[in-house]
């Protein structure tokens, strides 16, 4: 096995996490390879040194700073309004509010009401006329229905002779 391949087994070897076969593999390699053997002993040294780095105490000044934190009231945040998913809704709301305020603050509101009423009536009478035309068209087609059905029934597809 090459040194590169052995390297990945070195930590598990140090921590006794290898099975018998892998352990033997590492030990056989280390016996013959001074480079990997040296690396392993330096790894052990590094690991032992780190284990002895002590925890240090927090300074009284930092503790003072930390105890002050809960007294600070968190600022109310409206950042959620900046979410891209809310932007179409906000845009629609802005347009609606603008239209409503233009309408309610307009001094000629009566004129606008009259105009809207007229438009609604014109639209309604147009719709009525369309409906009436559609009905007359249905009646006309019903008149032709009998003739069309009769013609279809009597089409002479195979030029049969009627003797």
């Amino acid at each position, binding site marked *: 096995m090459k040194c590169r391949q052995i*390297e990945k087994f070195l*930590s598990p070897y140090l921590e006794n996490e290898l099975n018998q076969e892998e352990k033997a593999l590492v030990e056989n390699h280390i016996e013959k390879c001074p480079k990997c053997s040296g690396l392993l002993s330096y790894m052990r*040294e590094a690991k032992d040194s780190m284990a*002895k*780095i002590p925890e240090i105490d927090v300074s009284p000044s930092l503790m003072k700073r*930390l105890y002050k934190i809960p007294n600070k009231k968190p600022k109310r945040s409206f950042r959620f309004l900046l979410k891209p998913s809310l932007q179409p809704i906000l845009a629609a709301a802005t347009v609606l509010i603008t239209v409503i305020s233009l309408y309610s603050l307009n001094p000629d509101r009566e004129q606008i009401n009259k105009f809207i009423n007229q438009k609604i009536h014109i639209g309604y009478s147009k719709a009525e006329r369309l409906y009436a035309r559609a009905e007359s068209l249905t009646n006309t087609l019903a008149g032709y229905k009998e003739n069309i059905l009769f013609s279809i029934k009597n089409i002479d597809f195979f030029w049969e002779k009627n003797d």
Partner: protein
Amino acid sequence: MLIDTYSKKIFNLAYQFTGSYETSEDLTQEIFIKVYNSLHKYDCSRNFNSWIATLSRNYLIDHYRKTKLEKKKRTDFNEHILDSESKTDPEENIIKKQNQKIIWEGIRSLNPDVRMAVILRDIQGKKYEDIAEIMSSPLGTVKSRVNRGRIKLAKILKKEKENKNEMPAN
């Protein structure tokens, strides 16, 4: 209560990660602010220690990426670690202290994820399973990061020691 229980843990993690005493104090304060602001997001089914550790880890790595801590020297070793250690263990031998200093400085060369994995495993002595939860990474990835970190630190230790041996005696 929260401060009494976690201030030392968070501060030491920040200090071991950054190597700077002052920066770690600022970061500890910022992490606590973040904790208070995120408490409503805490999922009760999760271990609270792991939740705080994950939050601290994420904050430290974000800070690292913003400020590129690896370029700064980890200069506070003598002043704080050795002072603290000499009180608790006065018989610590000089070679071990030298090794610790080399390792402390060498941690600077590890990338943030490898650095965090090595600190949590070898300095803080956490279980691999806990580290995987804190780092939100698969167990195999964490083990591989720790191995890579140790190999790099071992190489640094070897190089520094060889350099010292080569130096002519005055």
